Protein backbone atom coordinates (compact mmCIF):
# COMPACT_ATOMS: atom_id res chain seq x y z
CA UNK A 1 0.00 0.00 0.00
CA UNK A 2 2.51 2.58 -1.12
CA UNK A 3 1.92 6.28 -1.38
CA UNK A 4 -1.25 6.00 0.62
CA UNK A 5 -0.89 9.48 1.96
CA UNK A 6 -0.20 11.00 -1.42
CA UNK A 7 -3.55 10.35 -2.93
CA UNK A 8 -5.58 12.79 -0.93
CA UNK A 9 -7.29 15.42 -3.00
CA UNK A 10 -9.83 18.10 -2.44
CA UNK A 11 -13.42 17.02 -2.23
CA UNK A 12 -16.35 19.06 -3.23
CA UNK A 13 -15.16 19.72 -6.75
CA UNK A 14 -18.58 19.09 -8.23
CA UNK A 15 -18.45 18.17 -11.88
CA UNK A 16 -20.11 21.26 -13.26
CA UNK A 17 -20.30 19.71 -16.74
CA UNK A 18 -23.33 17.68 -15.72
CA UNK A 19 -24.86 20.76 -14.11
CA UNK A 20 -24.36 22.80 -17.24
CA UNK A 21 -25.89 20.12 -19.43
CA UNK A 22 -28.94 20.05 -17.20
CA UNK A 23 -29.32 23.80 -17.44
CA UNK A 24 -28.86 23.70 -21.21
CA UNK A 25 -31.84 21.37 -21.33
CA UNK A 26 -33.80 23.78 -19.15
CA UNK A 27 -32.92 26.61 -21.54
CA UNK A 28 -34.30 24.51 -24.38
CA UNK A 29 -37.57 24.18 -22.51
CA UNK A 30 -37.15 20.70 -21.06
CA UNK A 31 -39.25 20.71 -17.89
CA UNK A 32 -38.02 17.20 -17.03
CA UNK A 33 -34.54 18.71 -16.59
CA UNK A 34 -36.01 21.35 -14.30
CA UNK A 35 -37.68 18.55 -12.35
CA UNK A 36 -34.29 16.85 -11.93
CA UNK A 37 -32.86 20.09 -10.56
CA UNK A 38 -35.91 20.46 -8.34
CA UNK A 39 -35.51 16.95 -6.94
CA UNK A 40 -31.90 17.61 -6.16
CA UNK A 41 -32.02 21.18 -4.91
CA UNK A 42 -35.46 21.83 -3.45
CA UNK A 43 -34.82 20.41 0.06
CA UNK A 44 -31.91 22.77 0.67
CA UNK A 45 -33.66 25.74 -0.99
CA UNK A 46 -36.80 25.09 1.03
CA UNK A 47 -34.75 24.66 4.20
CA UNK A 48 -33.06 28.03 3.69
CA UNK A 49 -36.37 29.77 2.96
CA UNK A 50 -37.99 28.19 5.98
CA UNK A 51 -35.11 29.25 8.20
CA UNK A 52 -35.35 32.83 6.92
CA UNK A 53 -39.14 33.19 6.82
CA UNK A 54 -40.16 30.89 9.62
CA UNK A 55 -43.55 30.14 8.07
CA UNK A 56 -44.15 27.21 5.76
CA UNK A 57 -46.76 28.89 3.51
CA UNK A 58 -44.34 31.73 2.79
CA UNK A 59 -41.47 29.33 2.20
CA UNK A 60 -43.66 27.33 -0.21
CA UNK A 61 -44.47 30.48 -2.16
CA UNK A 62 -40.81 31.35 -2.34
CA UNK A 63 -39.99 27.85 -3.51
CA UNK A 64 -42.35 28.31 -6.45
CA UNK A 65 -40.86 31.70 -7.27
CA UNK A 66 -37.36 30.25 -7.02
CA UNK A 67 -37.94 27.51 -9.57
CA UNK A 68 -39.85 29.84 -11.87
CA UNK A 69 -36.78 32.03 -11.78
CA UNK A 70 -34.50 29.07 -12.50
CA UNK A 71 -36.78 28.26 -15.47
CA UNK A 72 -36.64 31.80 -16.79
CA UNK A 73 -33.05 32.68 -15.95
CA UNK A 74 -31.22 29.42 -16.61
CA UNK A 75 -28.98 31.25 -19.09
CA UNK A 76 -27.64 33.43 -16.32
CA UNK A 77 -26.15 30.59 -14.29
CA UNK A 78 -22.43 31.18 -13.82
CA UNK A 79 -20.51 28.01 -12.93
CA UNK A 80 -17.63 30.11 -11.61
CA UNK A 81 -19.90 31.11 -8.75
CA UNK A 82 -20.69 27.63 -7.52
CA UNK A 83 -22.77 24.58 -8.24
CA UNK A 84 -26.32 24.64 -9.57
CA UNK A 85 -27.54 23.82 -6.08
CA UNK A 86 -25.63 26.80 -4.71
CA UNK A 87 -27.20 29.01 -7.37
CA UNK A 88 -30.72 27.75 -6.66
CA UNK A 89 -30.22 28.22 -2.92
CA UNK A 90 -28.88 31.73 -3.52
CA UNK A 91 -32.05 32.58 -5.48
CA UNK A 92 -34.21 31.10 -2.72
CA UNK A 93 -32.35 33.11 -0.11
CA UNK A 94 -32.70 36.36 -2.10
CA UNK A 95 -36.42 35.88 -2.68
CA UNK A 96 -36.91 34.97 0.98
CA UNK A 97 -35.13 38.11 2.13
CA UNK A 98 -37.17 40.19 -0.35
CA UNK A 99 -40.33 38.76 1.15
CA UNK A 100 -39.07 39.28 4.67
CA UNK A 101 -38.37 42.92 3.93
CA UNK A 102 -41.61 43.46 2.10
CA UNK A 103 -43.67 42.30 5.01
CA UNK A 104 -41.42 44.15 7.48
CA UNK A 105 -41.27 40.98 9.41
CA UNK A 106 -37.88 40.97 10.95
CA UNK A 107 -39.63 40.77 14.29
CA UNK A 108 -41.70 37.86 13.12
CA UNK A 109 -38.70 35.62 12.75
CA UNK A 110 -39.53 32.52 14.64
CA UNK A 111 -37.64 29.39 15.11
CA UNK A 112 -38.91 27.04 12.51
CA UNK A 113 -38.97 23.47 13.60
CA UNK A 114 -37.28 21.78 10.73
CA UNK A 115 -36.94 18.58 12.66
CA UNK A 116 -40.66 18.02 12.38
CA UNK A 117 -40.46 17.83 8.65
CA UNK A 118 -36.83 17.12 8.03
CA UNK A 119 -36.64 14.51 5.41
CA UNK A 120 -34.61 13.86 2.36
CA UNK A 121 -37.39 12.08 0.53
CA UNK A 122 -36.06 9.10 -1.32
CA UNK A 123 -32.89 10.29 -2.97
CA UNK A 124 -29.96 8.09 -3.82
CA UNK A 125 -27.79 7.35 -0.80
CA UNK A 126 -24.71 8.51 -2.68
CA UNK A 127 -26.21 11.98 -2.99
CA UNK A 128 -27.39 11.98 0.60
CA UNK A 129 -23.91 11.05 1.75
CA UNK A 130 -22.32 13.79 -0.33
CA UNK A 131 -24.80 16.39 0.90
CA UNK A 132 -24.22 15.37 4.48
CA UNK A 133 -20.51 15.53 3.90
CA UNK A 134 -20.83 19.07 2.49
CA UNK A 135 -23.00 20.14 5.40
CA UNK A 136 -20.53 18.73 7.89
CA UNK A 137 -17.72 20.49 6.08
CA UNK A 138 -19.44 23.88 6.16
CA UNK A 139 -20.54 23.36 9.77
CA UNK A 140 -16.97 22.47 10.76
CA UNK A 141 -15.65 25.53 8.92
CA UNK A 142 -18.17 27.80 10.62
CA UNK A 143 -17.23 26.39 14.00
CA UNK A 144 -13.68 27.47 13.40
CA UNK A 145 -14.71 31.08 12.97
CA UNK A 146 -14.51 33.35 16.00
CA UNK A 147 -18.04 33.64 17.45
CA UNK A 148 -18.33 37.35 16.67
CA UNK A 149 -17.53 36.71 12.99
CA UNK A 150 -19.93 33.79 12.81
CA UNK A 151 -22.68 35.91 14.36
CA UNK A 152 -22.41 38.68 11.76
CA UNK A 153 -22.39 36.15 8.93
CA UNK A 154 -25.52 34.45 10.27
CA UNK A 155 -27.31 37.78 10.67
CA UNK A 156 -26.36 38.71 7.13
CA UNK A 157 -27.22 35.36 5.56
CA UNK A 158 -30.44 34.48 7.35
CA UNK A 159 -31.88 37.86 8.21
CA UNK A 160 -30.66 39.75 5.19
CA UNK A 161 -29.40 42.62 7.32
CA UNK A 162 -27.02 45.14 5.82
CA UNK A 163 -23.77 45.91 7.58
CA UNK A 164 -25.29 49.10 9.02
CA UNK A 165 -28.30 47.16 10.31
CA UNK A 166 -26.04 44.54 11.86
CA UNK A 167 -24.03 47.28 13.56
CA UNK A 168 -27.25 48.74 14.99
CA UNK A 169 -28.54 45.34 16.07
CA UNK A 170 -25.32 44.38 17.84
CA UNK A 171 -24.38 47.83 19.04
CA UNK A 172 -20.97 47.54 17.41
CA UNK A 173 -19.21 50.21 15.33
CA UNK A 174 -19.91 49.89 11.60
CA UNK A 175 -16.20 49.56 10.84
CA UNK A 176 -15.94 46.62 13.22
CA UNK A 177 -18.87 44.88 11.53
CA UNK A 178 -17.35 45.44 8.08
CA UNK A 179 -14.05 43.97 9.23
CA UNK A 180 -15.81 40.96 10.76
CA UNK A 181 -17.77 40.32 7.58
CA UNK A 182 -14.66 40.43 5.45
CA UNK A 183 -12.45 38.40 7.79
CA UNK A 184 -15.20 35.86 8.42
CA UNK A 185 -15.92 35.35 4.74
CA UNK A 186 -12.24 35.17 3.82
CA UNK A 187 -11.57 32.63 6.53
CA UNK A 188 -14.62 30.59 5.55
CA UNK A 189 -13.51 30.59 1.92
CA UNK A 190 -10.05 29.43 2.96
CA UNK A 191 -11.40 26.66 5.16
CA UNK A 192 -13.78 25.42 2.49
CA UNK A 193 -10.98 25.39 -0.07
CA UNK A 194 -8.75 23.23 2.09
CA UNK A 195 -8.38 19.60 1.14
CA UNK A 196 -10.53 17.26 3.20
CA UNK A 197 -8.83 16.30 6.42
CA UNK A 198 -6.25 19.06 6.28
CA UNK A 199 -7.65 20.71 9.37
Amino acid at each position, binding site marked *: *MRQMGNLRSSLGQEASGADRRLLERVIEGDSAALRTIYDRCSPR*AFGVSLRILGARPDAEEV*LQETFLEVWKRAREYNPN*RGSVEGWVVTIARSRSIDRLRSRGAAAQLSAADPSSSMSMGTPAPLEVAERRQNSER*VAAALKELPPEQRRVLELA*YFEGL*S*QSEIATRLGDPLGTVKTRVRLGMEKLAGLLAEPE*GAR
Partner: protein
Amino acid sequence: MRCSEFKEGAWAYALGVLEPNERAELDRHLAEPIAHEGCRAELDRAFRTTAAMGEMAPAVQPPADAWGKIEARIAREGRANVLPMRRRSWVPFAAAFAAAAAFVFVLAKAWTYRNALIEKNEQLSRLSGVVAEREACRQELESMRQSSELQRAALALLELPETRLVPMTGRQPSRGNALLNIEQRKAMVLITALAPAVGKDYELWVIRKGSAPVAAGILKPGRDGKVIAEVKPELLQAGRPDIFAVTVEPPGGSPAPTTDPFLIGEVNPG
Protein backbone atom coordinates in the same frame (compact mmCIF):
# COMPACT_ATOMS: atom_id res chain seq x y z
CA MET B 1 -11.80 52.90 -6.38
CA ARG B 2 -8.75 50.69 -6.61
CA CYS B 3 -8.84 46.96 -7.28
CA SER B 4 -7.60 46.22 -3.77
CA GLU B 5 -10.55 48.16 -2.34
CA PHE B 6 -12.94 46.33 -4.64
CA LYS B 7 -11.58 42.98 -3.52
CA GLU B 8 -12.06 43.95 0.11
CA GLY B 9 -15.66 44.88 -0.60
CA ALA B 10 -16.39 41.84 -2.78
CA TRP B 11 -17.20 39.67 0.24
CA ALA B 12 -19.85 42.04 1.54
CA TYR B 13 -21.15 42.47 -2.03
CA ALA B 14 -21.65 38.72 -2.50
CA LEU B 15 -23.19 38.35 0.93
CA GLY B 16 -25.64 41.13 0.08
CA VAL B 17 -24.86 43.33 3.07
CA LEU B 18 -23.88 46.51 1.24
CA GLU B 19 -26.00 49.62 1.08
CA PRO B 20 -27.26 50.42 -2.44
CA ASN B 21 -24.75 53.23 -2.93
CA GLU B 22 -21.85 51.01 -1.87
CA ARG B 23 -23.03 48.30 -4.21
CA ALA B 24 -23.31 50.74 -7.10
CA GLU B 25 -19.76 51.91 -6.46
CA LEU B 26 -18.45 48.35 -6.74
CA ASP B 27 -20.54 47.77 -9.87
CA ARG B 28 -19.01 50.86 -11.44
CA HIS B 29 -15.50 49.66 -10.65
CA LEU B 30 -16.16 46.23 -12.12
CA ALA B 31 -17.48 47.81 -15.31
CA GLU B 32 -14.41 50.03 -15.73
CA PRO B 33 -12.39 49.10 -18.83
CA ILE B 34 -9.12 48.77 -16.96
CA ALA B 35 -6.73 45.92 -16.32
CA HIS B 36 -8.36 44.55 -13.18
CA GLU B 37 -6.21 42.78 -10.63
CA GLY B 38 -8.35 39.71 -10.13
CA CYS B 39 -11.51 41.60 -9.19
CA ARG B 40 -13.92 39.28 -10.96
CA ALA B 41 -12.17 36.15 -9.67
CA GLU B 42 -12.36 37.45 -6.11
CA LEU B 43 -16.04 38.25 -6.55
CA ASP B 44 -16.66 34.75 -7.92
CA ARG B 45 -14.87 33.29 -4.91
CA ALA B 46 -17.03 35.39 -2.61
CA PHE B 47 -20.19 34.20 -4.38
CA ARG B 48 -19.08 30.57 -4.12
CA THR B 49 -18.52 31.01 -0.39
CA THR B 50 -21.92 32.64 0.05
CA ALA B 51 -23.56 29.82 -1.90
CA ALA B 52 -21.92 27.27 0.40
CA MET B 53 -23.39 29.03 3.44
CA GLY B 54 -26.78 27.62 2.51
CA GLU B 55 -25.52 24.43 4.11
CA MET B 56 -26.04 26.13 7.47
CA ALA B 57 -29.77 25.50 7.13
CA PRO B 58 -31.06 21.94 7.32
CA ALA B 59 -32.52 20.42 4.19
CA VAL B 60 -36.30 20.17 4.45
CA GLN B 61 -38.43 18.18 2.05
CA PRO B 62 -41.04 20.46 0.45
CA PRO B 63 -44.70 19.38 0.43
CA ALA B 64 -45.57 16.68 -2.08
CA ASP B 65 -47.72 19.01 -4.18
CA ALA B 66 -45.08 21.74 -4.49
CA TRP B 67 -43.74 20.54 -7.83
CA GLY B 68 -47.22 20.38 -9.33
CA LYS B 69 -47.77 24.05 -8.40
CA ILE B 70 -44.48 25.02 -10.01
CA GLU B 71 -45.39 23.14 -13.18
CA ALA B 72 -48.77 24.87 -13.27
CA ARG B 73 -47.14 28.30 -12.91
CA ILE B 74 -44.66 27.50 -15.66
CA ALA B 75 -47.52 26.55 -17.94
CA ARG B 76 -49.42 29.70 -17.01
CA GLU B 77 -46.61 32.24 -17.04
CA GLY B 78 -44.30 30.70 -19.63
CA ARG B 79 -41.06 32.49 -20.16
CA ALA B 80 -40.91 35.14 -22.81
CA ASN B 81 -37.19 35.70 -22.50
CA VAL B 82 -36.09 32.25 -23.54
CA LEU B 83 -36.82 29.60 -26.08
CA PRO B 84 -35.68 31.37 -29.22
CA MET B 85 -35.48 27.93 -30.79
CA ARG B 86 -39.26 27.68 -30.65
CA ARG B 87 -39.61 30.65 -32.99
CA ARG B 88 -37.69 29.25 -35.91
CA SER B 89 -38.76 30.08 -39.42
CA TRP B 90 -40.64 27.35 -41.32
CA VAL B 91 -38.05 27.10 -44.13
CA PRO B 92 -35.32 25.16 -42.34
CA PHE B 93 -38.02 23.18 -40.59
CA ALA B 94 -39.54 22.13 -43.93
CA ALA B 95 -36.12 21.19 -45.30
CA ALA B 96 -35.43 19.09 -42.26
CA PHE B 97 -38.81 17.43 -42.62
CA ALA B 98 -38.17 16.58 -46.27
CA ALA B 99 -34.77 15.12 -45.44
CA ALA B 100 -36.28 13.07 -42.65
CA ALA B 101 -39.04 11.77 -44.94
CA ALA B 102 -36.48 10.70 -47.56
CA PHE B 103 -34.45 8.99 -44.90
CA VAL B 104 -37.48 7.11 -43.61
CA PHE B 105 -38.32 5.92 -47.15
CA VAL B 106 -34.81 4.55 -47.73
CA LEU B 107 -34.82 2.98 -44.31
CA ALA B 108 -38.15 1.25 -44.95
CA LYS B 109 -36.85 -0.26 -48.20
CA ALA B 110 -33.69 -1.49 -46.56
CA TRP B 111 -35.69 -2.90 -43.73
CA THR B 112 -37.87 -4.96 -46.07
CA TYR B 113 -34.86 -6.60 -47.74
CA ARG B 114 -33.20 -7.20 -44.44
CA ASN B 115 -36.25 -8.88 -43.01
CA ALA B 116 -36.55 -11.27 -45.93
CA LEU B 117 -32.95 -12.34 -45.55
CA ILE B 118 -32.90 -12.89 -41.83
CA GLU B 119 -36.37 -14.25 -41.26
CA LYS B 120 -35.28 -17.88 -41.47
CA ASN B 121 -32.33 -17.35 -39.21
CA GLU B 122 -34.51 -15.59 -36.72
CA GLN B 123 -36.94 -18.48 -36.57
CA LEU B 124 -34.10 -20.82 -35.72
CA SER B 125 -32.54 -18.60 -33.12
CA ARG B 126 -35.76 -17.32 -31.58
CA LEU B 127 -36.14 -20.15 -29.18
CA SER B 128 -32.63 -19.90 -27.77
CA GLY B 129 -32.95 -16.09 -27.83
CA VAL B 130 -36.02 -16.20 -25.64
CA VAL B 131 -34.26 -18.39 -23.14
CA ALA B 132 -31.23 -16.09 -23.06
CA GLU B 133 -33.43 -13.01 -22.80
CA ARG B 134 -35.36 -14.48 -19.92
CA GLU B 135 -32.13 -15.27 -18.10
CA ALA B 136 -30.82 -11.73 -18.74
CA CYS B 137 -34.07 -10.29 -17.39
CA ARG B 138 -33.87 -12.45 -14.34
CA GLN B 139 -30.30 -11.37 -13.67
CA GLU B 140 -31.22 -7.71 -14.23
CA LEU B 141 -34.15 -7.95 -11.83
CA GLU B 142 -32.01 -9.71 -9.24
CA SER B 143 -29.36 -7.02 -9.59
CA MET B 144 -32.02 -4.29 -9.20
CA ARG B 145 -33.45 -5.99 -6.14
CA GLN B 146 -30.03 -6.26 -4.52
CA SER B 147 -29.19 -2.69 -5.44
CA SER B 148 -32.47 -1.46 -4.02
CA GLU B 149 -31.91 -3.34 -0.78
CA LEU B 150 -28.41 -1.90 -0.49
CA GLN B 151 -29.75 1.62 -1.13
CA ARG B 152 -32.30 1.20 1.62
CA ALA B 153 -29.63 -0.16 3.97
CA ALA B 154 -27.33 2.78 3.16
CA LEU B 155 -30.08 5.34 3.77
CA ALA B 156 -30.95 3.66 7.07
CA LEU B 157 -27.30 3.70 8.11
CA LEU B 158 -26.98 7.36 7.12
CA GLU B 159 -29.91 8.25 9.33
CA LEU B 160 -28.26 6.89 12.46
CA PRO B 161 -26.73 9.84 14.33
CA GLU B 162 -23.61 7.94 15.33
CA THR B 163 -22.81 6.98 11.73
CA ARG B 164 -19.65 8.70 10.59
CA LEU B 165 -18.87 9.73 7.07
CA VAL B 166 -15.39 8.92 5.87
CA PRO B 167 -14.69 10.75 2.60
CA MET B 168 -12.84 8.59 0.10
CA THR B 169 -10.74 10.44 -2.42
CA GLY B 170 -8.04 9.59 -4.88
CA ARG B 171 -8.10 9.24 -8.60
CA GLN B 172 -10.51 11.79 -10.04
CA PRO B 173 -13.30 11.78 -10.95
CA SER B 174 -14.00 8.75 -8.74
CA ARG B 175 -14.99 9.64 -5.22
CA GLY B 176 -17.09 8.28 -2.44
CA ASN B 177 -17.79 7.85 1.20
CA ALA B 178 -17.51 5.05 3.68
CA LEU B 179 -20.33 5.04 6.23
CA LEU B 180 -19.07 3.69 9.52
CA ASN B 181 -21.12 2.90 12.57
CA ILE B 182 -18.74 1.12 14.86
CA GLU B 183 -21.28 0.82 17.69
CA GLN B 184 -23.47 -1.35 15.49
CA ARG B 185 -20.55 -2.94 13.65
CA LYS B 186 -21.84 -1.69 10.33
CA ALA B 187 -20.00 -0.13 7.43
CA MET B 188 -20.85 0.52 3.80
CA VAL B 189 -19.07 2.24 0.96
CA LEU B 190 -20.77 4.45 -1.63
CA ILE B 191 -18.61 5.24 -4.63
CA THR B 192 -19.39 7.13 -7.78
CA ALA B 193 -17.77 7.72 -11.18
CA LEU B 194 -15.97 4.39 -11.33
CA ALA B 195 -14.90 3.39 -14.82
CA PRO B 196 -16.15 -0.02 -15.96
CA ALA B 197 -13.93 -2.80 -14.67
CA VAL B 198 -12.74 -4.55 -17.81
CA GLY B 199 -10.10 -7.20 -17.25
CA LYS B 200 -9.71 -6.02 -13.68
CA ASP B 201 -11.65 -5.72 -10.46
CA TYR B 202 -11.98 -3.03 -7.83
CA GLU B 203 -11.26 -4.48 -4.40
CA LEU B 204 -12.13 -2.91 -1.07
CA TRP B 205 -9.75 -3.10 1.88
CA VAL B 206 -10.23 -2.53 5.59
CA ILE B 207 -6.98 -1.47 7.20
CA ARG B 208 -5.84 -1.07 10.77
CA LYS B 209 -2.50 0.57 11.42
CA GLY B 210 0.18 -2.00 12.13
CA SER B 211 -1.80 -4.82 10.50
CA ALA B 212 -2.02 -6.16 7.00
CA PRO B 213 -4.93 -4.88 4.85
CA VAL B 214 -7.95 -7.15 5.03
CA ALA B 215 -9.82 -7.86 1.80
CA ALA B 216 -13.43 -6.67 2.14
CA GLY B 217 -14.85 -7.69 -1.18
CA ILE B 218 -14.97 -6.92 -4.88
CA LEU B 219 -16.80 -3.75 -5.94
CA LYS B 220 -18.86 -4.12 -9.09
CA PRO B 221 -19.81 -0.69 -10.48
CA GLY B 222 -23.13 -0.46 -12.29
CA ARG B 223 -23.52 0.98 -15.74
CA ASP B 224 -23.82 4.41 -14.12
CA GLY B 225 -20.39 3.99 -12.51
CA LYS B 226 -21.86 3.81 -9.03
CA VAL B 227 -21.43 1.12 -6.48
CA ILE B 228 -22.81 0.50 -3.01
CA ALA B 229 -21.29 -2.29 -0.95
CA GLU B 230 -21.61 -3.52 2.56
CA VAL B 231 -18.61 -4.43 4.70
CA LYS B 232 -19.03 -7.74 6.47
CA PRO B 233 -19.66 -7.12 10.19
CA GLU B 234 -16.98 -9.62 11.20
CA LEU B 235 -14.39 -7.35 9.63
CA LEU B 236 -15.36 -4.70 12.16
CA GLN B 237 -15.25 -6.95 15.23
CA ALA B 238 -11.70 -5.89 15.98
CA GLY B 239 -12.87 -2.29 16.41
CA ARG B 240 -12.61 0.87 14.40
CA PRO B 241 -10.61 0.55 11.18
CA ASP B 242 -8.11 3.29 10.39
CA ILE B 243 -8.48 3.27 6.65
CA PHE B 244 -10.83 2.16 3.90
CA ALA B 245 -9.13 1.78 0.54
CA VAL B 246 -9.93 0.58 -2.96
CA THR B 247 -7.33 -0.87 -5.27
CA VAL B 248 -7.44 -2.21 -8.80
CA GLU B 249 -6.70 -5.91 -8.81
CA PRO B 250 -6.64 -8.79 -11.28
CA PRO B 251 -10.09 -10.32 -11.95
CA GLY B 252 -11.37 -12.04 -8.84
CA GLY B 253 -9.30 -9.91 -6.49
CA SER B 254 -6.11 -10.55 -4.57
CA PRO B 255 -5.38 -11.76 -1.05
CA ALA B 256 -3.21 -8.67 -0.56
CA PRO B 257 -3.20 -5.39 -2.50
CA THR B 258 -0.95 -5.41 -5.52
CA THR B 259 -1.42 -1.78 -6.59
CA ASP B 260 -1.48 1.64 -4.99
CA PRO B 261 -4.84 2.72 -3.60
CA PHE B 262 -7.26 4.01 -6.18
CA LEU B 263 -9.40 5.60 -3.51
CA ILE B 264 -8.63 6.02 0.15
CA GLY B 265 -10.50 7.25 3.19
CA GLU B 266 -8.88 7.75 6.57
CA VAL B 267 -11.10 7.37 9.60
CA ASN B 268 -10.70 10.35 11.88
CA PRO B 269 -9.82 9.13 15.37
CA GLY B 270 -12.02 11.80 16.96
